[in-house]
């Protein structure tokens, strides 16, 4: 077992097939608390599937995922959902903000899902929106703000519950380089100050350069680049 001591989230020998294609074929992964790990690889290599498995969104066909000593594959769907609500945060490429809710309501949503009262949830949400420099967008709806602002709102939402791991799947995929850099800078800074680990799936090396470590996924197999040098 090559589990590095003190890892927060460790996955070994993950396998996952969609139909006849093997999205994951013995992938490994580990991340420390507060660490930013970039997951890279060509399209269709299985990097998103790896993220989905690590986050407990999709159960792998086989293999083990251990988060803070708990085996994720042994949890029920409801338990995994609860874990995602409280311990994890998510940022996707696009289409993740509820178009009818205002930005502050969107950010407050994960808190509301855990049962926090509306007023309090929105106060916390505003705090995080300040961190991401989007506090003045609170009353606007996602359709009325730019893509970069939307992603920052999404990052604020990912951070609002104080998660220990943030999963970001191509968070800058739909942005130009300036906005992409800004989002990455704010995301990693906020994550570091909150001591949250970040699993960052990206195909852009300049985005990956914000990480501490890089893992390359090819044909469903992972490769930790740190161990090469």
């Amino acid at each position, binding site marked *: 077992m090559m589990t590095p001591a003190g890892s927060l989230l460790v996955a070994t020998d993950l396998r996952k097939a969609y139909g006849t294609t093997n999205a994951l074929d013995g992938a490994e992964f580990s991340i420390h608390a507060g660490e930013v790990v970039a997951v890279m690889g060509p399209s269709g290599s299985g990097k*998103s599937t790896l993220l989905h498995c690590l986050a407990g*969104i999709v159960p792998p066909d086989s293999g083990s995922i251990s988060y803070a000593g708990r085996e994720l594959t042994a949890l029920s769907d409801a338990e995994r959902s609860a874990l995602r609500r409280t311990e994890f*945060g*998510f940022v996707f490429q696009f*289409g993740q903000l509820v178009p009818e*809710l205002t930005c502050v309501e969107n950010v407050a949503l994960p808190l509301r899902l855990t049962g926090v009262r509306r007023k309090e949830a929105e106060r916390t949400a505003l705090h995080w929106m300040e961190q991401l420099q989007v506090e003045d967008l609170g009353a606007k*709806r996602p359709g009325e703000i730019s893509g970069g602002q939307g992603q920052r709102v999404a990052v604020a939402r990912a951070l609002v519950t104080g998660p220990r791991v943030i999963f970001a799947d191509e968070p800058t995929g739909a942005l130009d380089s300036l906005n992409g850099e800004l989002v990455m800078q704010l995301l990693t800074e906020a994550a570091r100050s909150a001591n949250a680990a970040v699993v960052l799936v990206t195909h852009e090396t300049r985005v990956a350069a914000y990480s501490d470590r890089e893992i390359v996924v090819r044909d469903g197999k992972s490769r930790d680049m740190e161990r090469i040098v």
Partner: protein
Amino acid sequence: MSRLQVWTRDLAMGARFAFGGGREGWIRTLLTGVGVGLGVALLLISTAIPGALTARYERGDARSTMHSDTADAPGPDTLLIARIGQTYHHKDIEGHVVRAEGPNAPLPPGLKKIPGPGEMALSPALDELLKSSEGALLRERLDARVSEVVGDPGLVGPGELLFYLGSDTLRKNGPEDYRVERVTGFGYEADRENLDPVLMLMVVLTFVALLMPVAVFIATAVRFGGDRRDRRLAALRLVGADSRMVRRIAAGEALAGSLVGLLLGTGFFAVGRSLVGSVSLRQRSVFPADLDPAPWLAVLVALAVPAAAVAVTLFALRGVVIEPLGVVRTARPSRRRIWWRLLLPLVGLGLLVPLDGRGNSHGRFNQWQVSAGVVLLLVGITVLLPWLLERFVGKMSGGPVSWQLAVRRLQVNTGSAARLVNGIAVAVAGAIALQMLFAGVEGDYTESTGQDPGRAAVAVMVNRESDAPMDELAQRIAAVQGVTRAVPLTSAQAAHRMPAEEDTVQVTVGTCDALGEVATLDSCEEGDAFVLTGPSSTGFYGGTAKPGDELFVGNVRRYEFETTDSPAPVKWQVPAGARTVPAREDPTGQLRSGLLVTPSAAPKELGDFPDARIFVQVDESGPDALDRARNAVFKTDPFVTAMTLRDSTQAAGFSSIRTGLFFGAAAVLVLIGASLFVSQLEQLRERRRLLSSLVAFGTKRSTLSLSVLWQTAVPIVLGLVLAAFVGTALGAVLMGMAAQPVRIDWPSVLGMTGVGAGVVAAVTLLSLPPLLRLMRPDGLRTE
């Protein structure tokens, strides 16, 4: 290019998109087609119903003898005809006895020759019934040889049960023998009276109430999948179409869908029409051939539906700006204003209220005024609802997450939510109003009869002209298997002087056992007589007599029957020992007054009794006993009426109209539910990625499912409340017009709103499987 050419070109391009959009485009066009088709079929059926009813009436008139030419004496062209309607297994059978008195006797419609003695002509449905095992007992009653089957021109409907029985003994006993008519022809030129105003009101209302939601539904159906289409239009803008062009193209797409709908609708109608012949609702059936829409109405439908499709599309795109890079709904349309929205229903009400009370005393309604009033009131719902919904959800915040998601979604787009619910609201309001009106009018016709089927199942009424001796008939009935008791009672009129004035005395003759049915007797022996106490009705039989009184018994009001050859009244003394006993309701609910006499104490040589009846009790375990008893009666004398006793009677047809109305409205609601479901699916599919990401960060599936429920339920509940309110108000106004006391018919209000609520539940339930499927993380996969 001329304006017309431009329009044609763009509409044609839209039509090409409707059919050429790949599998998904096809499905959407087909959905629109099916939706519009169902609406069109409903429209066609509605337009055909008046024609079908007219055809029924015309054929009914053609064979009627009520106002036919009659003759006083037998001749070469006279026919004796008498009605002998029968009941079998709770079904009514129309029957006539006929006897041709000469070679040129008129032929009833649908017959080739008049059945001779021992022959009968049958309707196809009765023929079938007689041949079936179900008709075994009826075969004993109608055992004549079948000479022919009555052709369609002689029937009002394909399911009608009808026979003409030949006879050589039928005779007419003088002109006052009302049972038998001597006719020289059938049918009469009907001088159609104006429809009863209340009936007219109902007909107008039924049409308006059922057609309005269909119109609303068609308007919704042509925009199935509208959001997706709008996005495709954006792509067209990108390649250079201007904004007016894309609107025309969108209209062309809707037009194509509505044309498909017209075709499908005609198909549905044709199928429904051919099925209608085999359906019998409460013994009413319609010939498919009668169900022909009036040509001008059919043309109107064929023109109005596509035109409406184009108009609705252009109207719906009014608030939408289609840019080359996407569709922008004008973010905040100006707040809806209330004044003109209130104006519509108020004007409608204003048109209706002056008609208050006109239903009474042969008043007349102006049809146009009624229709316009009702339409305005119902249209008022469709304009009030969006405003109400906007106000209702506009200020709302707080509540659980599922609620917040739903409310916010409604806030952003109240228009489309209201559009969908409008149909439901109009249908429910119309149906409630109609049900109220029917329930109110029905009150006039449904009455407790006071009859007690527990004491006797059948009352056999034997009238003056009957040939059969009373006791013999009673014995025959008693001998029938399954009959437990047959109690004969006769009665005659008596008076203190001749000719009698108002206060004649009823003298009822029967055995002690039989008299027990009409009075509470502590003891009774043959030879006893009794004087009845108890509340006596006034009128003919209102009088009474004391023991020892001298009375005339028999035809004491002889002057009324100068021409009859019945014997003169006899003198009779009320037995001195007659005791006073309290009267009791007989099984037909009648409370007698006057005297009760056992046969040996009764006046002799009375001739026939003017009124005689036999109460028949049957063994409940054998359902056929009733029909065996009827068989025995028929064999003895076909003219004797065997009346089945019921707790209550209802004017025929009313309850079936109400049932029909309920199911019609329910069908419309289901139709609208289907369109709600389709748009729900559209919306869910569009939000696939969003749903997946919400699930990713841990949103419970139940939260999302609930939000879908709220999203459907909030507008519908509001719509139903508004509909119940408007429907009740409309119903109250209509009842006022029909001069009925206003009474809210809660069962129908609850029933209709219940069906509406059921539609919400069904739509939500049906949306759940696709919702759960869409919430799977697959939606997150980009690769």
